[in-house]
């Protein structure tokens, strides 16, 4: 209980160095992982899903689960000795064992021949009349388009946020908000690199949403700072930000819990695709809640404390304490 009382009176702004250090460590670890895994090129430090490469991926369940060696032999005999074959415990979400086979891009005719070869060898499972056979093919240009359109979306979103927050608050707040956004982006990317999880288009959608959510959280804190500023104009800026944080803390905690609950359910009970989505959202929401308090607000404080009247207030408070 004591902990809960303390968080409502903790001097968050006085400990900014710790928060900045913590964020730097997490982001640093992610960046190092990106560089190491990418062999010097951070862009390659992520485990990209099929959408970003080219090739055909088949997920299939057979009537009787053959051994990996048998499948490899059949796939080889069908003319694809370089195919990557993996056993999967659940054919995309269902609890049926099967295989995931990834080959070069197959044309329609090749796909048909390949499926025939698999069916001839092992018989594709057909529970309730539908085949357990999923296929995804991506051509060379598609992945590049997904990436470039996503980067464009992020850049434009950040620019608009910058403009909106500058217009509604002040450019110093916009800097804090953008810093928090970039922080969250780097945290998610870093964690994806560290854990080696596959990056899919769903991940990108989740990351874009995180931007929106994190900002939402930040704006609510900023809104309170803006409201408190005239009321507590005699207070050093950092203290006023502290007050604003304490006042919005219950909301921050409750909202985070409320958003995390359903996303956690997705992570626990959702199928494979939903799980992917939920993981990115989970990391992003927690990072977003953190960054509003520990990144965005301290940065605004640092910038604002440089203003002459705020500097004077701070100095005065310091001499008073002595």
């Amino acid at each position, binding site marked *: 209980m004591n902990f809960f009382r303390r968080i409502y009176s903790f001097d968050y702004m006085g400990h900014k160095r710790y928060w900045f250090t913590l964020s730097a460590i997490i982001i640093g670890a992610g960046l190092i992982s990106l560089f190491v895994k990418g062999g010097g090129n951070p862009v390659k430090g992520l485990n990209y899903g099929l959408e970003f490469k080219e090739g055909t991926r088949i997920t299939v369940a057979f009537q009787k689960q053959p051994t990996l060696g048998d499948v490899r032999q059949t796939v080889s005999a069908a003319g694809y000795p370089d195919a990557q074959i993996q056993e999967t415990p659940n054919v995309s979400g269902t609890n049926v064992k099967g295989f995931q086979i990834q080959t070069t891009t197959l044309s329609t005719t090749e796909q048909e021949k390949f499926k025939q070869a698999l069916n001839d060898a092992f018989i594709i499972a057909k529970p309730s009349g539908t085949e357990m056979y999923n296929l995804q093919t991506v051509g060379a240009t598609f992945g590049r388009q997904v990436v470039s359109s996503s980067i464009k979306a992020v850049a434009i979103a950040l620019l608009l946020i910058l403009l909106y927050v500058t217009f509604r608050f002040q450019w110093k707040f916009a800097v804090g908000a953008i810093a928090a956004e970039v922080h969250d982006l780097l945290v998610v990317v870093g964690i994806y690199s560290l854990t080696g999880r596959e990056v899919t288009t769903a991940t990108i959608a989740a990351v874009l949403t995180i931007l929106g*959510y994190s900002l939402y959280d930040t704006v609510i804190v900023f809104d309170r700072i803006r409201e408190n500023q005239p009321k507590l104009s005699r207070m050093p800026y950092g203290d006023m930000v502290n007050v604003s944080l304490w006042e919005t803390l219950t909301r921050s905690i409750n909202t985070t819990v409320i958003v995390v609950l359903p996303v956690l359910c997705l992570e626990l009970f959702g199928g494979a695709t939903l799980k992917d989505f939920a993981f990115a959202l989970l990391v992003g929401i927690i990072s977003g809640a953190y960054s509003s308090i520990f990144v965005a607000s301290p940065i605004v404080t640092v910038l604002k404390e440089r203003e002459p009247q705020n500097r004077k207030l701070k100095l005065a408070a310091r001499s008073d304490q002595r």
Partner: protein
Amino acid sequence: MTGTLNIAIWIATALTIALALWATLRRKNWVVMLCMVVLVGISLYFIIPPSTKTHLGLDLQGGLEIVYQAKTADGKVPSSTQLDQTISILDRRVNGLGVTESAIQKQGTDQVSVSLPGVKDPQQALKIIGKTAQLEFFKDDPQSRPVGPVASKDAALKELQSQGASKAEIQQLSTDGASAHYSLVQSPADPVSGQPEQWYVYKLPPAMTGAAVSGARAGFGSDGKPNVLIDFTSQGSKQFQAVTRELYRSGLLKNQPQTFAIVLDNVMESDPMIDYTKPDLRDGISGGAEISGGNMTLQESKDLALVLNTGALPVKLVPAFQQQVSATLGKDSLHQGLIAGLIGLGLVLIYMLIYYRFLGLVADLALIVYGILLWGLFSAIPVTLTLPGIAGMILTIGVAADANVVIFERIKEEVRHGKTVRSAVNSGYARGFKTILDANILTMLTAAVIFEFATASPKGFAFTLILGVLVSMLTAVLFTRAMLGVLAGFAFFGRPAFMGVHAGQIEATAAAEDRMGASRRRRAAARAQGDGAPVAVADSTTATAAPAPPSGGRRTSTSRKKKKKRR
């Protein structure tokens, strides 16, 4: 009839929302409640029965999705007219397949996405949809056919090069199957007759093209095997007659039967022979042609007829992305998504109830209404529900609940500051709303950017998010406000404990406010003396914000003293 009805319902919905807004401004709480009941009713009309009225994406019901990259015959970016033509031809082909909920859309300047949820045989669909269906008729004489038959593509190209074709042309022929002067044609192996695959090079232009064809239908040949009968336009009929007459005559001259090739997308479909010994063919064949590809199945003949009937695409389609989801996987994903969503919603409802007590109950009711309205909106538009869409919906549960959290925290704050519950509700909404508006505008801004710039799956997600935010403003702001306004008429409502605020908290905060005032006065006095130092800054800040009795030596004693005085 249903169209008019739908328009009427949309207008009624818009009017109801407008009325609700007006009633909110005028504080006519009962009217707002009534509007909400009407909206819920309209939503239910759109939802029930959900099994037929909810549109599931192919990731939830299984099916096929393909994104084609369109190129003109010479490898350039197609014009928008060509792309539109392509889409209408694809549309006809897909309809011919009997897929009900298909969607064919332009993507960017040179892509077409085709989604066929619930398609039974994706392989068959793939074969039909993407076919260029370039039909060509070639005469099989040395002039029209400089190369062939040879056993491989390389052999065919080599032979053509030895006849003096340019290297560039060979290269293009190898990759595209056609060049300025030639067309590379394959005759696939026939397992029944044991004939291996053969390759030919024909000289362009062909004797006739698909333009001469008016229609095609599947049938059976004289040998009882499935075939496709081609009907010609009147112009095409004349052309065909001329070609066959010529072949008859040269057959007679050479004393050897002549053939012509029917080629579809560089594959020889049929190679009919004109029998020069039959005098009734002297004037050529006037009726139609027949494609009898040896051992065509009935299904294949029907597919071929469909492709020929819908005509040739003005562009070449190369699959850029293809996703084929089995119905089992789709069903399971939907099931898991729904379960996760329901459990998530349940947990949120419980959390709100525990934390905000009576206010939580109001928020919970609003959340349930939110769920119904959003679902109704999805069924009405209709939005095709996809997995990312479900994730977006589940996320918006959080956003919708948050609007209430923001407002309720404000109300609690006001109550702690000693306001009556009724006036706290009013000022809580007034102040909370500004915050929510700012935050929601920003969320929608990002969602709109995603919607505009991102590709397929993030798009569905963004759209859900936008709708969710809009609906949540309606339920979490208008509806809860009206509900609280109505409830404020009852006596029990005045007790702060109903919203989880305890008497002790009110006192503590009021006491802190007191000291705030005191310190302000002290500071003002100090300022008046010309000494600008804020005397007790650290003291006052801690006290203002701590709703619970503050801990720590000096401050605790002060606040105790104050409390005693008040008692």
